[in-house]
């Protein structure tokens, strides 16, 4: 049901984009105004969400420790899995963000001869990382539309990305990797009964939306070439707030832009905000120095306790009878 609805939703967007492409007015609105709205929504939404998280304090220091802590000097500690100082906490976070360290631990379990056997299951890590890195490269490559002349680092990135020179224009490795990653993540969600069982509309929709962006992008590069100069002019218009009506835009470009705009506007309000949230996760970004440095809870409120005096008052006779010392005779 959730899968079906998300397929319908993506097709509806495509259909809308097709209609937009057919109308010069709608095309102008999309390319001249909607993008600013999208940008404002994205920026506002992103700041709002991060602000909302940041506003909630971290009352306790609760890192999840995955290696030996720093204790006695002759015991070797593991600073990257159990941060003992700022530098090691940053190292741990870098591992999480750039290498997906925790996902790399992934294992699976099979019942063999009536006992659970744990096997390595790095595929989720591999395709997940591949998907994210290629997505990042593709976003960076698109910067070539935003600067004149094209930044040298972006040119080299593109050249490297098209290193294998398969086809004309060269197929980007990142494009293939993105599609590969998407296919794996999507198929896994559909095929594995447990993952299908937990999947919501948003889980399928985000994957399909990005797939829509990738497919329309590839179509424009390899099958229905668009006028790159026209696009560059269009983007330059965005950046200088001097957008001119582009006239007819192709159906594929219209779809590509519509998918991208929806993704950008929707991102802050969806699970894709894990992009910002991962930095704030208290179980990962905190130092495990609990016993050496006191952590302060801003709302640490007094609670009713049972004092020693109350305790002794109740048990004084029994304590005396057992020969235990008391405060008051």
């Amino acid at each position: 049901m959730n899968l079906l609805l998300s397929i319908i939703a993506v097709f509806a967007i495509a259909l809308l984009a097709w209609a937009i492409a057919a109308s010069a007015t709608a095309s102008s609105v999309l390319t001249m105004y909607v993008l600013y709205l999208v940008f404002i929504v994205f920026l506002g939404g992103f700041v709002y969400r991060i602000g909302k998280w940041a506003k909630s304090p971290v009352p306790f220091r609760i890192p999840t420790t995955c290696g030996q802590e720093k204790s006695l000097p002759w015991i070797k500690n593991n600073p990257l899995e159990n941060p003992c100082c700022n530098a090691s906490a940053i190292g741990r976070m870098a591992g999480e963000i750039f290498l997906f360290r925790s996902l790399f631990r992934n294992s699976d379990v099979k019942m063999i001869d009536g006992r659970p056997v744990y096997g390595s299951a790095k595929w989720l890590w591999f395709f997940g990382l591949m998907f994210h890195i290629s997505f990042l490269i593709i976003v960076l490559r698109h910067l070539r539309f935003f600067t004149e002349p094209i930044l040298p680092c972006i040119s080299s990135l593109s050249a490297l990305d098209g290193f294998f020179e398969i086809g004309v224009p060269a197929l980007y490795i990142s494009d293939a990797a993105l599609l590969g990653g998407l296919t794996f993540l999507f198929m896994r969600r559909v095929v594995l009964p447990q993952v299908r069982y937990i999947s919501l509309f948003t889980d399928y929709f985000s994957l399909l939306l990005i797939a829509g962006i990738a497919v329309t992008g590839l179509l424009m590069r390899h099958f229905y070439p668009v006028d790159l100069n026209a696009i560059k002019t269009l983007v330059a218009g965005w950046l200088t707030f001097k957008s001119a009506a582009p006239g007819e835009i192709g159906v594929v470009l219209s779809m590509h832009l519509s998918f991208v705009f929806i993704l950008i506007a929707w991102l802050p309000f969806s699970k894709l905000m894990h992009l910002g949230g991962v930095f704030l996760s208290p179980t990962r970004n905190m130092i495990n120095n609990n016993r050496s440095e006191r952590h302060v809870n801003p709302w640490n409120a007094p609670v009713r306790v049972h004092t020693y005096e109350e305790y002794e008052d109740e048990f004084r006779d029994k304590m005396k009878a057992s020969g235990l010392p008391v405060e008051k005779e």
Partner: protein
Amino acid sequence: MSFAKIPKPDELINIKYSPPKTQWMNTPVDFRSGTWSYAAAAKNLTALDIPNPRAWQPSDEDWKLPENWQQIILDGMKERLEKYRSFRLFMDICVRCGACADKCHFYIGSGDPKNMPVLRAELIRSVYRRYFTTAGKCFGKLAGARDLTVDVLKEWFYYFYQCTECRRCSVFCPYGIDQAEITMIGRELLNLVGCNINWVLEPAANCFRTGNHLGIQPGGIKDMLEFLADDIEDRTGVRVEVPINKKGADIMFVTPSADYFADPGTYTCMGYLMLFHEIGLNYTFSTYASEGGNFGLFTSHDMIKRLNAKIYAEAKRLGVKWILGGECGHMWRVIHQYMDTMNGPADFLQEPVSPITGTRFENARSTKMVHIVEFTADLIRQNKLKLDSRRNQHIKLTFHDSCNTARAMGLFEEPRYIISNTCRQFYEMAEDTIREKTFCCGAGAGLGNDENLEMRMRGGMPRAMAVRDVVKKHGVNRLGCICAIDRATLTTLMDYWVPGVSVMGVHELVGNALVMKGEKERTTDLRGDEIGG
């Protein structure tokens, strides 16, 4: 422990992992006997100022909730979203990748999809979305949102008291989402409308009044410790002293009450007493702070603080320099991650220094509380103990890392160092089941009761099977640990899945191996079993 009422191991191991045909939101919880814990008695709620004390059971149709229970829960959620970044963030950023799913011992042991940490969290996330997000308010089910109904509350109760807060899922989550945090908040919310289990609240109420979970009064504590001293004298010929509530001692010693109350914890406690005697430590037990464990951790953050407050208060009253803590798992979660923040700063204590070796425990300089395996590992390292590991020759040991010391501290090497110096035959279990990947005993977080036995055996199955492997491979006959709940619950677990394996604390090994001044020739270990037998 009688296993008569639950399926036999060869039946229980037939676990189906395919999810039910109905969607999870449309699959109400079934309170099948053997898989849930009895409701808390009204007197325990009253003792702890918890609202809605009444007679009820989870299997009842009517839970006798307060009229405005939904409002109470939603207000409680709002408050906690504003107080805990962990809670708010973990409500928002899960992508449902499912990496956590088969990491939960309850899922592996039951196949129930709501035991996948991701779905256990969705139970509460769905309500969060419905009342606290625009998408959930507008699109309902399409946005993964649902109304807070009595059925939802029952589901929360069943599954939040079917999570041991072990944090294993958090190790594997790419964002570090910690189901323990979510369960803790979930239980807090349930407590707001008086839905809690007796196995948690009775110990908490006892602890509040008498200072320990078991409700042992001052004289009883003294008798029990003296009894252990008698046993030590019987085994070794050495009479050890048991200082209690002694003002002016250097160190206050706090350990779980289970250590002096019941086997096999008592043997570990004998190990402590012998060690302290042998090194001439100027220490004291306390009857007011006679509990290291803290069942507040399984109730609410406020309750953690209320129960934990005794430790610093008593250390101050007795005028000790610092505090030493015994072998326990969740006790150390509280001491390591909560105590100083909640009840500190302990500026009336001194930075811990071992009076025997002069070692400064810099890692505990603020909290001023040292773990006994750190203390003993240091003694061994500095050659202050005479140990004869031959006395543990009859023991073929494997070691279970306790969830909390593993994933909330990172205490891995100290116990192993002690083991390597006291026991000659030591075999590690499979890598995926030890250290930060250790499996829970299946009965922590207050679930170690008899009525919940089937679920305990299911949840403990991954741990038990890892033990069975080393039993088959190396003939292991003893399971070591540094947790009092483990010592009680793993014993039952072994009896069910791997009969013939008994459970011990690391300081029982120390007690066996420790060569004491003036001791007689030892023919038995602390349990009275023949050495080498």
